[in-house]
């Protein structure tokens, strides 16, 4: 098999294995969401073309190992019958991961829905220096680990205090993870500069004195694992608007394309050029 063929295959989600002519077929499963009726087909394909098992990846995906080169197109076609697509490898935007979001009692945003939308728009985008991983986590519990992604999105909530409803029970003070609330006899002190927008006070308050004002996104950039792990840094503590979020991803990819060196992950680019520089450029580019 010619070298260029191998690269073409790798770019489209077929990964070489130790054994000659065998490939692991990576699926594109945004947010780890797969329908029950798609599963029998996977079982069938793995038995027919692989070795009868599947591999669950760390990014919520599924791979079908040990597929012979001659069968790759057949596998692709059979997957398409149940609406399943092939994932991505190489220097491009990877399948977006997301937590259960709307289904979870802690979810502040519809992480599944948002993750799928982002995947629809940005999946497979190439022309960037290295791989680019995006995730959506529904709340500051951060189950999907936004700091381990090149671009991590976290659902957050902003609140307002309705004094008349407060009965000064101190529950919010107890549940606040950062000590932003202090309750005295008949007085409540709130320090917004400490708030991480998790909404624990809103959900705990028995008298509905903390009201949800708006949901937004906390953005982390430059995280990665691998040989040289590095945690992503918080760049925007409360980014507003879904459309504006898509613009931010678009502009971030433009920035990475322009400023990144070949083979450099986004965290490296940011480290070299400066987080503030990136932040200023984004703020200037997006209204």
């Amino acid at each position, binding site marked *: 098999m010619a070298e260029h063929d191998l690269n073409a295959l790798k770019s489209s989600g077929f990964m070489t294995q130790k054994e000659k002519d065998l490939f692991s077929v990576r699926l594109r499963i945004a947010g780890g969401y797969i329908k029950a009726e798609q599963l029998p087909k996977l079982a069938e394909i793995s038995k027919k073309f692989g070795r009868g098992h599947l591999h669950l990846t760390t990014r919520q995906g599924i791979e079908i190992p040990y597929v012979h080169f001659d069968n790759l197109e057949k596998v692709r076609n059979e997957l398409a019958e149940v609406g399943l697509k092939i994932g991505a490898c190489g220097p491009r935007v990877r399948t977006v991961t997301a937590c259960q979001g709307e289904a979870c*009692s802690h979810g502040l945003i519809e992480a599944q829905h948002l993750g799928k939308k982002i995947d629809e728009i940005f999946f497979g985008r190439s022309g960037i220096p290295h791989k680019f991983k995006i995730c959506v986590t529904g709340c500051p519990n951060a189950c999907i680990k936004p700091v381990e992604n090149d671009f991590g999105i976290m659902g957050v909530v902003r609140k307002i205090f309705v004094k008349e409803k407060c*009965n000064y*029970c*101190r*529950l919010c003070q*107890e*549940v606040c993870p950062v000590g932003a609330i202090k309750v005295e006899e008949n007085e409540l002190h709130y320090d917004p500069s400490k708030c991480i927008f998790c909404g*624990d006070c809103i*959900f*705990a*308050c*028995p*008298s509905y004195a903390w009201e949800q004002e708006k949901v937004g996104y906390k953005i982390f950039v430059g995280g990665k694992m691998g040989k040289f792990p590095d945690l992503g840094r918080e760049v925007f503590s409360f980014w507003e608007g879904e459309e504006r979020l898509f613009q931010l991803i678009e502009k971030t990819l433009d920035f990475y394309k322009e400023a990144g060196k070949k083979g450099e992950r986004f965290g490296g680019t940011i480290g070299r050029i400066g987080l503030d520089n990136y932040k200023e450029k984004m703020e200037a580019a997006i209204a």
Partner: protein
Amino acid sequence: MSEMKADEKLDLRGEICPYNFVKTKLKLEEMEIGQILEVVIDNGEPIKNVPRSLKEDGHQILKVERIEQYFKLVIKKS
């Protein structure tokens, strides 16, 4: 707030999430609408989760009282 007489009481100290909530929920199911249940739960995770789940189920938390490292919740079945 004046003292309310509890119809039922539950001591859920040492009970982990979500069993503390499940036990509260089961107790409330046995009770009549408008009746008062008093539960004592631990500080930390329980205080974060139990009141929230009770609100989601539509019950009213009339009073929260801190007793050392515990919290007493006075709940009205709704």
